[in-house]
């Protein structure tokens, strides 16, 4: 009985550690996403992502048109758009997990993502 632990014990130990590390990583990733982030999609595809807590002015120029929005004081507001109807520019700033800004002509959607948000969709 020279070895206190046999090789299976060591393997098991390593596996438990790995599972633990993954668990921890998984939880931190989850927590990271739990903080509101600003998600921009163009034509249904993820385009870019920003922290709601940041302070910046962003220009999104795509084949469909150009939109300029601002993230400030945990709020997002569309400032300029090349679209005809300008509905997105007239829309109020958004700040909670349910809010979206849609620019239909430019196929652009700005959403505030919140992992623990239970609302599946907004209608109106």
């Amino acid at each position, binding site marked *: 009985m020279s070895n206190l632990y046999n090789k299976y014990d060591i393997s098991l130990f390593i596996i438990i550690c790995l599972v633990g590390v993954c668990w921890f990583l998984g939880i931190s990733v989850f927590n990271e996403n739990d903080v509101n982030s600003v998600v921009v999609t163009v034509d249904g595809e993820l385009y870019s992502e920003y922290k709601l807590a940041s302070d910046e002015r962003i220009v999104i120029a795509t084949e469909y048109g150009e939109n300029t929005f601002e993230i400030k004081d945990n709020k997002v507001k569309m400032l300029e758009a090349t679209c005809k109807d300008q509905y997105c520019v007239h829309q109020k700033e958004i700040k909670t997990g349910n809010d979206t800004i849609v620019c239909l002509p430019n196929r652009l959607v700005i959403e505030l993502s919140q992992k623990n948000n239970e609302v599946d969709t907004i*209608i109106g």
Partner: protein
Amino acid sequence: MICLIAGCQFNKTKHSKSFFGSFDTIVTITAYETDKEFEKMMDIAEETMSKYSRYFDRYSNFDGINNIKTINDNAGIAPVKVDQEIIDLLDYSIEKTKILDGKINIVFGAVLEIWHEYREDALNNDIVAIPSIKELNEANKHVNIDSLKIDHENSTVFLEDEEMSLDLGAIAKGYSVELLADRLKKEGYDSFLINAGGNVKAVGMPSDTKADWVVGIQDPNSNGGSVSDIVKGNNISIVTSGVYQRYYEYEGERYHHIIDTTTLFPANIYKSVSIISEDSGLGDILSTGVFLKPVDEALSLINSIDGVEAIFITNDDSKYYSDGMGRYLDE
């Protein structure tokens, strides 16, 4: 480890994705599915909605299909041979709009066209005006549903009056959402949510741990911001007609796109009307139809139909619920 990696790929997680181009709006599909199955659902959704969007379009022609515009272009000229999908939509519309005693007329196109032009001019060309009552009355002579001839045997549709035109704007989107839901169910999907620009259809339980789909109804005063009500349920449709987005202003008055078949002018009673029912096509018809009725009439109509509930928000921000609405709302 293998289990963890595998878990990421095959676990059913919440997916939500949108596409543009059908019915001039954004269509979003939400489902608790695997990546692979969700991709398949998106493909089916995009193909189906794009197909119906072309069939039911009254402003554009498309190669290889006769659509609503083809029928309108041939008004007073010749019957148009169409696919069964169009005949079905027309039959459905004629049957279901009866409930609204004339408030929804699918051959009201001549009048709607005039308003459409004035609205486009105001929004796109800065030419702001409203049509004269004379102009509207003239168009209103060409809205007789009896002049719509559907030949089921030969699959043709004919508008006998050359000035007349079909407009299915109050029905086509909700009806197509219902057809898409049927198609997805046929493909074996029993849990998903479709949101096509104001027309929501929620099917099945979202997941093993979540019994109801949760739909937020936008507060008409927040202009895209917060939610006024939260509706929960499964196997239901929620359709909202709101006018706080598509309107123009003339001499301080707002002119939106829901036109009263009696006054020939936009109805100015509500900011938003939401209908909860099983059939999204019926929900679409009712949300537009009720929009044109005073609150008491609208409420008694909704309360008289089994399985249909509603939320009304009037211009003065009063909110009304139908008798059975409570069971869909958060306590």
